């Protein structure tokens, strides 16, 4: 299998789906002539032309609403937010229009829409640019939230998202764009709403997503040295949550640490922890512990930001506490 970067995987997914269906188009800031602020859309303007690869003004609210309107008409827009932090100015359009229109219309309209971009910390861009909004959007009943951690899932899930007839929140992470791994050639679709065990283990289950999956894997390797065998579940899709797989794993390990980059209060990990104790109460030998970002705004200073972000060290520490 060819080894490509997560960035290239996303680029291939968009290109292949645009090839397949001319109702699919991409719009966002700098996606066309600049080839994308983070180069995810590299080459797409040349391939598909300005009708389908569209540079927008800096008007997230309007071009998000534009995409929702176009989707109700039957097109299949892909919106790129330069980063998800900038989706905050489009929050009403995402929640009240993308998220409610079909229901309010009694199901008359479909909203085949993908909203995508990168998110997360570690880039030293400070408090306004480092949000991880998956918990906010997953709180909206009609929204599906996907956060891939590996190139193959990024490609397969983005292709599935573009083919879905429903609004999809697709949250990437810039620090993973250069991550390289094998990606199957040709038609490769990954099912939405299914988690994946990225490392099998018998002692404890780590539940993570996106960049935190890699933190969990790193922690698992460290623990392996001290004879602790951790299983790493990469959620891939935050909502709908694949609790079938979570349950199956927790029933085997009876110990859980959740790794998430959300700020802790009501992050997605709180929901997962709630469900584990709610549905698997007797399976737990110890409390579920969440390793999340610290409850402070994102500082610019690198040492402070690294201290704030969830780290493999903190996961190791939490695992030892859970297993103590």
């Amino acid at each position: 299998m060819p080894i490509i970067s997560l960035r290239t995987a996303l680029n291939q997914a968009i290109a292949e789906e645009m090839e397949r269906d001319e109702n699919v188009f991409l719009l966002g800031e700098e996606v066309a002539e600049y080839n994308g602020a983070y180069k995810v859309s590299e080459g797409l303007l040349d391939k598909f032309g300005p009708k389908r690869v569209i540079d927008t003004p800096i008007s997230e609210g309007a071009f998000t609403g534009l995409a929702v309107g176009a989707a109700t008409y039957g097109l299949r827009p892909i919106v790129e937010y330069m980063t998800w932090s900038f989706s905050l100015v489009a929050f009403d359009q995402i929640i009240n229009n993308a998220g409610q229109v079909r229901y309010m219309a009694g199901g008359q309209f479909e909203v085949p829409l993908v909203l995508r971009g990168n998110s997360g910390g570690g880039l030293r861009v400070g408090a306004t640019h480092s949000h991880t909004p998956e918990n906010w959007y997953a709180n909206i009943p009609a929204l599906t939230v996907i956060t891939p951690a590996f190139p193959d899932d990024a490609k397969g899930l983005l292709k599935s998202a573009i083919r879905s007839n429903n609004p999809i929140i697709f949250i990437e992470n810039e620090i993973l764009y250069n991550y390289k791994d094998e990606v199957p050639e040709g038609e490769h679709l990954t099912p939405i709403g299914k988690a994946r065990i990225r490392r099998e283990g018998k002692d404890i289950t780590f539940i993570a997503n996106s960049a935190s999956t890699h933190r969990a894997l790193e922690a698992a390797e460290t623990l392996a040295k001290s004879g602790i065998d951790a299983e790493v579940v990469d959620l891939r899709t935050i909502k709908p949550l694949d609790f079938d797989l979570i349950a199956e794993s927790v029933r085997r390990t009876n110990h859980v640490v959740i790794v998430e980059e959300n700020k802790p209060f009501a992050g997605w990990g709180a929901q997962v922890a709630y469900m584990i104790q709610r549905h698997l109460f007797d399976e737990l030998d110890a409390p579920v512990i969440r390793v999340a970002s610290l409850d402070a705004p994102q500082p610019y200073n690198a040492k402070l930001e690294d201290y704030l972000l969830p780290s493999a060290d903190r996961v190791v520490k939490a695992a030892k506490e859970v297993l103590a």
Partner: protein
Amino acid sequence: MHTVDTPGRITASPTSAPDAPLLPVLKPDEKHAMLRKMVLIRRFEEKSEQAYQKQQIRGFCHVYTGQEAIAVGTESVINRDDAVITAYRDHGHALARGMCPKACMAELLGKATGCSKGKGGSMHFFDKKKHFYGGHGIVGGQTPLGLGIAFAQKYTNSNRLTLCYLGDGAINQGVFHESLNIAALWKIPVIYIIENNLYAMGTSVARSSAGDPLVKRADGYDMAGIVANGMDIDDVRIKTAEAVNLARTESLPSLMEIRAYRYRGHSMTDPRKYRTREEEEQQRARDPIEIYKQRLLDENVINEKDYEDMEAGVASEVQEAYDFAVNSPDPEIEEVFDDIFAPETQIDEIERRPKWSYGD
């Protein structure tokens, strides 16, 4: 083609002489039909108010009384397959679009037979078959949706256009300005129609918006700004035809300001303390239905008898709609979980696993 000279003064723009070629002369039955539509809206809203008093309609209910000539007049110069989208004061636009009064009244009563299956209510009428895209409750929130529908109309080379209505208060939502800029920049065939009924709830235009006329805001985007008198359906038609011509022939957007008056309170619970009864009387004196009715009488398009028959026909149509709504069933409780997700056709259904509840 800004059609206002002295700010505030409404003037005909060059191309809008009564004999404007843009506008085919109406046949008598068409004139009759327009008058009837306005009357239908007026009576429908009276019935809505009664139903609200009986608490058969709940939540918010915003009636269109006084603005009938805007919805009916603008609608009369576009095609059935053009698209329409508006805000929460949507009953008039829905009926003007030709939506079934029964389905509309049933929606007001929250019934399963409603145009949104009882899930949308007064603010959220929808009818895909009629290309009616709602009915939107968040002020200004529909303006980028209208842009997107028109974008799709252009993308698919349909030569269709979209009318997107908003209130005078709604022009102060930022997303509307973002939409104006994109519409002008990309030549999107959307016609934004500000229904200037002089008030946003209790706030007069002068207290909410700097700059007069409101269409001056189009200048900054090199977009056409057109002002029309919403009490005269023929003026509405003439001015709208200009905007339609721009959209149809050059795929250009326009901003229209059509001035009318909201006869009733903002919603059913508004005592209207912010304005005098005298003001209301003066405004009602130039009633759009009366003006057009008189014109048709003068033109001998109709006689008093015709009008009485029309009123009678409308009365029974509205009563039927009401009876239909009252006698329709509520949605089944379980339907609360329907209509959230569209069935998948290009991928396998996405598993939602209800057995692992997110909450009890």
